[in-house]
């Protein structure tokens, strides 16, 4: 899998790719097999081009900076912070110490790794949801949902938007139809409803993270969304603990406060406006007002995603979904905000700046 800059003929997964030049020119297929352009290959698997966009190293520094600042803040404030909050904050910090480098490395390594990672997160989040709701006992429906999730991420990998869009209604049709074919009408609505919600959230919703990686400049675009969600979560937590104030939805999650939510929203809007100027330079989205709208949408979606998971947990009567990440709980506890942010951010960016406008469609399947 030699990158283009090293010259020569290319082979990827047994496909001869031919001599490549710059640009998005589709290469002639050999023996009727699909061709993959060198740019598509670079985007998918070449980490050597990770810092081609100058916004990427800046955003990487922004993502890593809190990991260096947080321990200093926690040590300085250890006398004023209640011991339980301090312990919880340290646990969360160590969770982030693992999560941030893993996510940064995935984004930097290539879009292919982002899509593999997003597919893995989708399936693991579905697993936690299924275990919390009892849907995991319905093995057949679970296999259908997982199959749908895989197809959505494969459509993203292929940059095949029509399949990506069609996967959702077709997936729902398969879940509803094939479940009916089991000839077990009792509990049908509950089973299918749980499965469709899961497919919508973890398949279609998180699938937008994969599709966002189809843009030529996907690294800073994806980074700004992921960092915004991370900032939202941390500032919501810090402001909520420090100021408290009236509760946002006491029946759903008594820990969430209005001040925390509003404060986190303002931080996210500020960050998106500041960083977006670099990331979306030269597009219609470099306008601060439009960036503020995108930031607001991300903040609202993040808050709703957080409440959504809390509602699922309250309804299922469970405290935690898993113990995978110390201080955070399960993967779903960590990625709950991202589930709703992913489609919102994708379509907001698509609406204002366009998405993958110059990247070749159907990377693998175009004959």
């Amino acid at each position, binding site marked *: 899998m030699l990158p283009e800059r090293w010259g020569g003929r290319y082979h990827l997964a047994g496909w001869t790719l031919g001599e490549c030049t710059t640009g998005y020119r589709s290469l002639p297929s050999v023996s009727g097999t699909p061709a993959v352009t060198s740019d598509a290959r670079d985007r998918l698997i070449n980490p050597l081009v990770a810092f081609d966009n100058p916004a990427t190293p800046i955003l990487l520094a922004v993502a890593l900076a809190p990991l260096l600042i947080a321990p200093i803040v926690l040590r300085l404030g250890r006398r004023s912070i209640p011991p339980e909050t301090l312990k919880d904050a340290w646990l969360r910090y160590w969770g982030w110490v693992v999560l941030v480098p893993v996510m940064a490395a995935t984004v930097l390594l290539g879009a292919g790794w982002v899509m593999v990672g997003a597919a893995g997160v989708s399936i693991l989040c579905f*697993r936690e949801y*299924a*275990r*919390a*709701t*009892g849907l*995991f*006992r*319905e*093995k*057949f429906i*679970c*296999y259908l949902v*997982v199959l749908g999730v895989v197809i959505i991420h494969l459509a993203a990998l292929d940059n095949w938007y029509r399949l990506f869009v069609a996967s959702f209604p077709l997936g729902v049709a398969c879940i509803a139809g094939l479940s009916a074919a*089991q*000839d*077990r009408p*009792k*509990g049908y609505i*509950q*089973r299918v409803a749980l499965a469709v919600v899961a497919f919508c959230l973890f398949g279609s919703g998180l699938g937008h993270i994969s599709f966002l990686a189809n843009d030529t400049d996907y690294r800073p675009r994806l980074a700004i969304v992921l960092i915004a969600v991370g900032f939202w979560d941390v500032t919501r937590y810090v402001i909520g603990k420090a100021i408290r104030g009236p509760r946002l939805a006491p029946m759903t999650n008594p820990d969430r406060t209005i001040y925390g939510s509003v404060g986190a929203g303002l931080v996210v809007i500020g960050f998106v406006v500041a960083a977006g100027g670099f990331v979306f330079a030269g597009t219609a989205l470099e306008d601060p007002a439009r960036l503020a709208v995108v930031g607001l949408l991300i903040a609202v979606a993040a808050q709703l995603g957080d409440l959504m998971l809390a509602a699922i947990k309250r*309804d*299922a*009567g*469970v*405290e*935690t*979904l*898993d*113990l*995978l990440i110390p201080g955070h709980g399960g993967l779903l506890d960590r990625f709950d905000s991202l589930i709703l942010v992913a489609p919102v951010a994708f379509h907001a960016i698509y609406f204002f700046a366009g998405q993958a406008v110059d990247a070749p469609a159907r990377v693998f399947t175009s004959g």
Partner: protein
Amino acid sequence: MGRDCAEMDDFDIRPARDLGLYPWERLSSVRRESGPFLTVVHTAWALASRAYFSLWHRLRVVGQEYLPTEPPFVLCSNHSSHLDALALAVPLRVDLRARVFALAAGDVFFESAFATAFAAGFINALPVWRKKRTPKALLQLREKLLGNPCGFILFPEGARSRDGSMLPFKPGVGMLVAGTNVPVIPCHLSGSFAAMPAGVRLPRPARITIRVGPPVRFANVHNDKSGWEQVVRTVEGRVRSLREDQDRALQREHEQP
């Protein structure tokens, strides 16, 4: 597939019983429930072990009609080899495998992370800690058997026989089923001792025969010490009777020209 989910006909939001445990704790927990992924592993293992026992041990099942098709149930057998739990699971329906648990010695099968992953992932074993076996542990198993209908493969002798003879049964099985309508299916395994006795690492190609007897229920037996003794005596008698049947069958085979 429909039968596999029979307990879910009236769908209630019911979280996994092993929720809140760390992944490694879950594998060795009595509360473990197999999800879609583990079910695929169990099914693949079931198919592979069915092929293995058919080809290498020419497995023969006598009395297959007595084998259960729906949980809950308890399969009780003599024990003389590590092959026993695997062999007893082979004739069961493949789609039951995720809900059939072999009760295995915790100090052997759940000692290391690798052994635990193998025992839980492939064999679908649950640990029984012989040195710290308590009534509470057996009560948890009883609750699992009744509350989350499943099947147990269990060896009431408590250890592998070192010479192929049957050891006296221990009362644990009585504590599991006394006063319930859970059927106990007596089984007898012959040939597994010749194939892989204690101390042998690789199985020999000896023929294994499973004799299955009619199920016994103990709904009218008191769930106390005398009741447990009654259950054990009955089950042990049934298994010994199957052993005698097997001995007679072998004798007839030898006598035939």
